[in-house]
């Protein structure tokens, strides 16, 4: 049995003169170029409006150019300062600056909350249930703005507790019981 297929038929290329063929190729190139230019424009405008500068607490507090701008900052949470109002769903806490470079995050967070000379920042996070990971010595990564009153109002709050999964070897105490 002969096979039946549904296929569109092409317009014969011979129907077009060389000049028309060149014009059609030009149309194709222009369409491609248009898509590329539009994409580049989208990427540039998207970057301009969506970029968030990731700065340290020290830079945010000391440099007035960041005041009122949407930025991302990271620091260590001081546990005793945490408050949460269940009716307004507002979190407030104090965050201590951590250095930009460190070998061990847990140590950096511990040093930051223990040293009273480290720069501190008052933080408010509105319309946010209290996350379980919001606790003493957690790392908070916040997106928001520093107000004229010196309080940082965050629209986004990310938390990390480095101690949770970093234990690479068992407690050495198992050695003491090995021969029991």
């Amino acid at each position, binding site marked *: 049995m002969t096979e039946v297929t549904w296929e569109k038929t092409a317009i014969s290329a011979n129907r*077009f003169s060389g000049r028309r063929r060149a014009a059609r190729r030009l*149309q194709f190139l222009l*369409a491609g170029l248009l898509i590329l230019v539009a994409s580049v424009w989208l990427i540039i405008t998207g970057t301009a409006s969506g970029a968030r*500068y990731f700065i340290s607490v020290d830079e945010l507090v000391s440099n007035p150019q960041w005041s009122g701008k949407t930025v991302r900052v990271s620091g260590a949470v001081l546990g005793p300062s945490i408050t949460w109002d*269940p009716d307004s769903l507002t979190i407030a806490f104090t965050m201590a600056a951590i250095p930009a470079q460190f070998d061990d995050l847990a140590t950096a967070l511990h040093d930051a909350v223990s040293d009273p000379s480290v720069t501190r920042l008052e933080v408010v996070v509105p319309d946010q249930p209290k996350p379980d990971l919001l606790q003493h010595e957690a790392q908070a990564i916040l997106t928001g703005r520093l107000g004229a009153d010196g309080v940082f109002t965050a629209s986004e709050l990310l938390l990390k507790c480095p101690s949770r999964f970093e234990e690479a070897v068992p407690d*050495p105490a198992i050695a003491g019981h090995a021969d029991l």
Partner: protein
Amino acid sequence: MLAEVGLGALLLAFAAAFYALLAAVGAGLRNRDDWLLSARNAALLTFPLLLCSASALLLALLNGHCQISYVWSVTDPTTPSFYRFTALWGSQQGSLLFWSLLLSLYCFSAILLSWREHRRLMPGVIAVTMATLAFFLALSLLLENPFERFWLAADGTVLRDVFIPAGARAPDLERLAATANGLNPLLRHFGMIIHPPMLYLGFTGFVIPFAFALAALASGDLSAAWIRATRRWTLLAWMFLGLGLLLGGRWAYDVLGWGGYWGWDPVENAALLPWLTGTAFLHSVLIQEKRGMLRLWNMLLVIFAFSAVLFGTFATRSGLIESVHSFARSDIGFPLFAFWSVMTLVALGLTLWRQRQGLLRDERAFAGLLGRESLFVLNNIVFAALFIAIFWGSFGAPLVSEVLLDAPITLGVDYYRQVTPPLFALLFLMMGLAPLAAWGNSSLRRMGAGLRAPLLLTMPLLALLALAGMRTPVALLAYGLVTLAGMVALVEIVRGARARVRAWGEAWPQALRALFSRNRGRYGGYVVHLGVTVIGIGVIGSTLFQAETQRTLARGESLTLQNYELRYEGFSQALASDGRLLRVAAVTLSREGREIATLRPRIDVFPQQPMTIAGIHSSAENDVYVLLTGHSETGARATFRLTINPLINFVWWGGLLLLAGTLIAAWPHGASVAARRQDSALQEAQA
């Protein structure tokens, strides 16, 4: 014993892969068939050896051999068997071994299936696949060994080593087990048994088209042979990666407790990039097959697809990116980066060399804007633009700004929501137009005639949506484009079947069956288009019309959102058999005054961290997604977040269609040689 068996098999697999690499290169350079045969046998051996190694680790996980540090770090005595199985890919070392196992499975299958037909390409194929496998096995052996064990030194310190250090002894296993870490709570989900394997099958599968492409470049055989050999493998890898992405979305929706399924996280994006490149390749490769065009472009797409896989692997596993999906910081970052750079540069260098020799020149030029090949190329340009936009947002902007600016910048969800929708809209437009165009050239009048029926089907649906109250122009435009693309695919299937019904008097079911079985690639592709349409409907609904509210309620109080009411009924706590504390809220969900469900959103408190598990009322229309986000000590008051996700289930249903369509397209042809000759003769006559 299991550690020794697993490690021995791993070592032998590395030796076999390395030997196969050397023998294949030698066979290619000296044209020695006996060396090639030896390389093939060694390459084939890697799969059973790695199966043995992975089985040893799996047995150790199932039986709690926690002297093996990997077993200790991902399980504990309370871990259920189900999660002991998923723990095989639950952390870096195990998942690297699993990755290598899947890679070797692909190599094993591709070499066996293509050995006779593509003998000339085999030295290159074996060399590239075995170089990749040997590299990943070296990472496992030297930096992330899954068979390292704990030992006690004479001074009581705990050591971690593959072999017993001098003067050390084995620790007490019971006490060791008592301190075991247990699996990361985020990975304790049914989806984790299938999401990572799918994703890894997708990632590793792209090594086969890459290897065939490099083999073609190295051998100078740049005919369509490498394309024929790899199209099905690419389809398979593309399908697995697509399913992996969808299942990852489902896992995030169920486990991460934020009400969404795609957060434009860099790790998610790293997996999306090769999928986008693969999709572009699957379209443009048709043009090379049918018209002998885009030879250079196809070569670049295959190279970039695998390069994106390696880059994604580097980004995810090096600790470069902070993400809920990424692995912990690891020493394998630099070697992975170096391997990615070398493989990409070698592939691009070979391509440039062959291009200069004129071996990648096209057989013909584009005839016009409305030809199918032109529309496919424009579609490829949009895919490339999406790739660049997502890569820039995830990696480019942060890295470039780190070097050039005072403060590094990050691009969040806002960036992607601004940049990607117009590009996706263009893709759907191309998806609707391209099937209506003929190869070579077409005219607006002819395409308009083809568009009439799909438009007639789309317009009433849009009118219904508008009558139902949807007046947002962006939403109507988005639904119009997506539905039109689906309708074109549907109408094309109906037209094909109708041609058979009219010509041969076949019944419709018989005509449809014959249509699909005789041209699986084309009609399987249309089913994939339908799947993507259904996914698009779900994404638009759940993105543009998502509604959310949150409040703290006392028992008996309620909150409302749209026409839903949520009433807080009570709170309870219980201890599960695996040690987690369950804090459960009972809520009643009503719609327009009628109770429709009782939901139990809860917080699972693991020793390591809590997890918020949503209570979901699911229907075709929407998901009502309830999270318990906080509570007082006694549960007298609790805070809930209520989210309505319209049409979200279309995303998962579309995934099933995508799976079905890809399987149809990739299924081997069963038609007889005579029937295929008849088809070819008819197509030539039609041309």
